[in-house]
């Protein structure tokens, strides 16, 4: 069963996972891949229509931003460079050496899988581990010991790349 360090009283009641369409989170992210590794902070605002991801170093300085909307996706760097693409997933490869499925990631962080995902649940009916579009997903910790709790530590892995998120704050 996934661990729960948080004090349940701090965590407000959460809506059913399937109803969570919009969220904002801050997290610390460990990106581990063959040739390099990063520990970075992420501020992510997600809606079905838009994504805004800010990547910061420990000092709170933004090192890159990823934006997705109806016009496509843009990656902005702290050196003032701008890269555009139809897909935000492709632009994530500027940080992770390979594309990352942002839409799927927005499900995994709330403890869900895509339609074809294969899931294993814990004794509270929460996602514990799963397979989804070739990625292995593990929820290592929830924010509280309750069935409606949101994930606190989530890991997404494919051969050669592991992304581990410690979610520090949620705003729904």
């Amino acid at each position: 069963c996934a661990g729960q360090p948080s004090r349940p009283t701090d965590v407000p009641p959460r809506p059913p996972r399937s109803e969570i369409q919009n969220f904002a989170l801050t997290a610390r992210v460990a990106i581990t891949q063959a040739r390099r590794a990063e520990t970075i902070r992420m501020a992510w605002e997600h809606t079905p229509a838009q994504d805004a991801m800010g990547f910061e170093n420990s000092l709170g300085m933004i090192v890159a931003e990823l934006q997705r909307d109806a016009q496509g996706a843009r990656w902005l760097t702290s050196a003032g460079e701008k890269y555009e693409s139809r897909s935000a997933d492709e632009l994530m490869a500027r940080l992770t050496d390979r594309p990352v499925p942002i839409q799927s990631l927005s499900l995994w962080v709330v403890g869900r899988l895509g339609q074809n995902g294969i899931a294993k649940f814990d004794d509270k009916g929460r996602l514990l581990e799963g397979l989804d579009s070739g990625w292995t997903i593990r929820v290592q910790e929830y924010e509280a010991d309750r069935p409606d709790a949101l994930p606190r530590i989530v890991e997404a892995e494919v051969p050669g790349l592991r992304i581990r998120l410690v979610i520090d704050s949620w705003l729904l």
Partner: protein
Amino acid sequence: GGIEQLHQFLNGTRTARATFTQNVISKSGKAGQKASGSMLFQRPGKFRWTYEKPYSQLIVGDGSKLWTWDKDLNQVVVKPMGSALGASPAALLAGDDDLDKNFTLKDAGEQDGLAWLDATPKTTEAGFERVRIGFKGGLPQAMEVRDNFGQTTMLTFASFERNPSLGADNFRFTPPKGADVVGE
């Protein structure tokens, strides 16, 4: 002024110890995350930057490599020191002539009882637009780092000790048992 106090500080300081608070202010003026911890440095180029709140993270510059360890993430990232400049202001204060060599310095007058200086990187590789350092009594009391997206990190120092004796172990990093160690 600020520059004079900076040079006095750099010339007269081999080691230092202080606590710090860190506040991030977004471009729109919204207060972001608050953090606090402690820092040590030994010139040239060695420093230990410890975040105690809101989470546990440690950044050590051992003179040749930069080690970043996050307890929750259970990962140690090792990088060449070159990337230290943007990772921690302690790298600025601990550098031997980093500030003069890599920055354009300008006195920025008195404010809040501190003598300030502006340091603007000479290249875009620093990853940020400008640093302001505020001095009082020859010691750094505050630093403001403005990144290239308009976000500002405000640091205030307290209990600043100049030239305490610091064991060499402070600037060596031994990865904790079970942590992933990854990097160059």
